[in-house]
């Protein structure tokens, strides 16, 4: 036997790294020639324009509420001083200055309750009781006139509290109505079904602004001679009726997702129609459509900005009102718009994240 010595073959090349920072960059920024071109073009645009934006927004901007500096920097830098000067008027509207703790407290209460209502552990009967308690407390705090609080008429309410109030009460009051309408639309009784369909399609076919015009110009005509409810109340009724139609469609989506077997099983147990809906169908359906309800809430939250057009000064209106009141500061409206944009965005973005989170949780239970 010939002696064979061990001859090592060439070592195999190390596998191409696919994990880590550099491979990620290579794959996601320079994957193919199209990707390379995109990266280069975007980088070039950023180098060209970002410095201008940064200069305007930060480096040459004026942060102190001094008019002279703002006027000197006009055109070159932003005047964030306008916000430092007017932020109270923008956020709280025309509410009397020394009473402003009241809208602050009332809004905190409302937002706190909203957050609590979003957490599933707290979905208990006492939550409904809490809502029934907090709603009058909110109005007493805002309106005053009892418990030694100075009365503040609703035309002085404004800013963020009004925005949050209109959106929250719009949805909360629309909720029971929308469940009835959604059930009615799936009912076997033709007259009730057609009434619900007509209501939903009529309201969804017209813009919110026409509903608000109706609330503002026509509701006073609808009521007995002499009765003239507050404009805020009228607008709230309009928003509620509007939101209920959209919410009803969302809830109907949830109702349709419940398998028929659930209803049949409930009936075979001897439950009546309302027992079936209350104990079997609605708990499942509402849990499914929670993200949808949240999206409705976001939509209404954004839509409350429209009440400006019928002279209620919520966040958007309060900003215009505050800056229009002073001719010197009026040129810095753009900065004011950016400020309230940020507020709207913060609220809506947080809510949409919550909605996504709920959706993921729901799917997790579905996937097993």
């Amino acid at each position, binding site marked *: 036997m010939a002696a064979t010595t061990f001859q090592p073959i060439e070592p195999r090349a190390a596998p191409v790294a696919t994990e880590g920072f550099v491979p990620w960059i290579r794959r*996601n*920024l320079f*994957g*193919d020639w*199209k*990707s390379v071109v*995109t*990266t280069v073009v*975007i980088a070039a645009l950023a180098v060209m324009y970002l410095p201008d934006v940064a200069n305007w927004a930060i480096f040459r901007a004026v942060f102190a509420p001094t008019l002279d500096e703002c006027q000197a920097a006009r055109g070159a830098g932003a005047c964030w001083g306008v916000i430092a000067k007017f932020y109270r008027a923008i956020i709280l509207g025309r509410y009397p200055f020394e009473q402003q703790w009241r809208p602050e407290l009332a809004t905190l209460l409302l937002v706190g309750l909203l957050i609590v209502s979003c957490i599933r552990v707290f979905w208990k009967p006492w939550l409904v009781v809490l809502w029934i308690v907090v709603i009058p407390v909110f109005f007493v705090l805002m309106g005053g006139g009892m418990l030694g609080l100075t009365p503040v008429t609703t035309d002085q309410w404004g800013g963020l509290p009004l925005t949050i109030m209109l959106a929250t009460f719009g949805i909360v009051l629309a909720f029971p109505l929308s469940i009835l309408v959604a059930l009615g639309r799936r009912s*076997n*009784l*033709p*007259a*009730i079904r057609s*009434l619900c369909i007509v209501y939903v*399609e*009529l309201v*969804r*076919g*017209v*813009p*919110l*602004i*026409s509903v608000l*015009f*109706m609330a503002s*110009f*026509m509701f*006073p*005509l*609808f*009521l*007995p*001679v002499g009765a003239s409810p507050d404009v805020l109340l009228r607008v709230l009724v309009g928003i509620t009726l509007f939101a209920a139609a959209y919410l009803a469609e969302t809830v109907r989506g949830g109702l349709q997702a419940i398998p028929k077997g659930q209803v049949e099983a409930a009936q075979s147990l001897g439950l009546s129609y309302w027992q079936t809906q209350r104990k079997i169908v609605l708990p499942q359906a509402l849990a499914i459509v929670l993200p949808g309800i949240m999206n409705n809430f*976001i939509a209404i939250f*954004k*839509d409350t*900005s*429209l009440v*400006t*057009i019928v002279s209620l000064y919520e966040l*958007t209106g309060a900003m215009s009102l505050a800056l229009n009141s002073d001719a010197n500061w009026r*040129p810095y*409206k*753009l900065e004011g*718009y950016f400020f*309230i*944009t940020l507020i*709207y*965005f913060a609220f*809506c*973005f947080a809510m*949409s994240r919550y909605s996504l989170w709920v959706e993921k949780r729901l799917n997790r239970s579905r996937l097993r």
Partner: protein
Amino acid sequence: MSAAMPGRAPPKKREWSWRSGAFRGLVYQVLAVLVIGLALWFLVNNTLENMRARGIQSGFGFLTQPAGFDIGEGLIPYDALDPYWNAFLVGILNTLRVAIVGIVMATILGTLLGVGRFSRNAILRGLCYGYVELFRNIPVLLQLLVWYLVFTEILPPIAEPISVAGLFYLSKAGFSFPVPVWGLGQGLSAIGAVIGLAIAWGYRRWAQRQFELTGNARSLFLVPVAIVIGAALLGWILGGAPTAWSIPEPGGFVMEGGASATPEFLGVLLGLVFYTSAFIAEVVRAGIQSVSHGQVEAAGSLGLSRGQSMRLVILPQALRVIIPPMTSQYLNLTKNSSLAVAIGYPDVVSIANTSLNQTGRAVECIAIIMLVYLTTSLSTAAFMNWYNKRSAIKER
């Protein structure tokens, strides 16, 4: 059926008792209709009484009276002495103009953004995501107001506009762009394009039938497009191939020549387009994601190229998911165009608002607004339902 069939109950007599579900249903319905009817009667009665008490006149008779206010822009000639119905017509056309242009632009931008979310480039992906999250979380009214502010405050005055290649001008007076001088050639070209469209449609049907009969695939896109372009070109050449363009030139106070879009129109348009395209991007993304990956792999294993599998496999299936939410986005855009009243673009709501303030006929003016939007919404919904049915899965 004979009596020999077992287990079949004899036909029930109608039971007039509370224990019968049918009877209870009847009672509930009668009650519901009564309650709603009474409520409506109460409201109408109050309205009539209020109108009498306040001396408000009613009826649509005012529509034939002269309107007496000017309208900033419109597609048809109008002046302040024309009757109200003419003013409303101008408003309706303005609404439709901004809605149609907005829908086309938002669809293009939204589709690009939606597809961009699937890009292989991380920066592009991130930018598309950031755009969508930013623009859909800001109220559309606020966006409208900001754009309008940009046009009326930030842009340079008309005497020194921002110019692109001496053809396009941007200033406080709006956006000016060149247009061809309308003549015989352009007219013939448009007629040619319409005829070409008809021929192309016929060709497509013929080619499709040929494909089903013989299996020979003919181009269903390039040839029809070529037919349309060719027909339009033929008309243009027959008309003497005119090349005259009207180019805008900055005068002292107005733009001379060309065509212009007003700041009001642009404010409404840009606000609506940027807002709606964020939603359309999400619709498109969801549609593409809904096509299962197996479909793409199957297309690949059949030897289809990337483009072919996108066009023939993914898009037709994604479209089915996309169409219903896309319809509601189009309707939303149309309804949101009513916000034009906030920045003074003379759409139908704005005209109705002015008329309401002048004549005091709230019920009639608001009824006109609602009627216009209901008609648009319901007819769009009907058309999209028809289209949706056409592209739905053909099942047995």
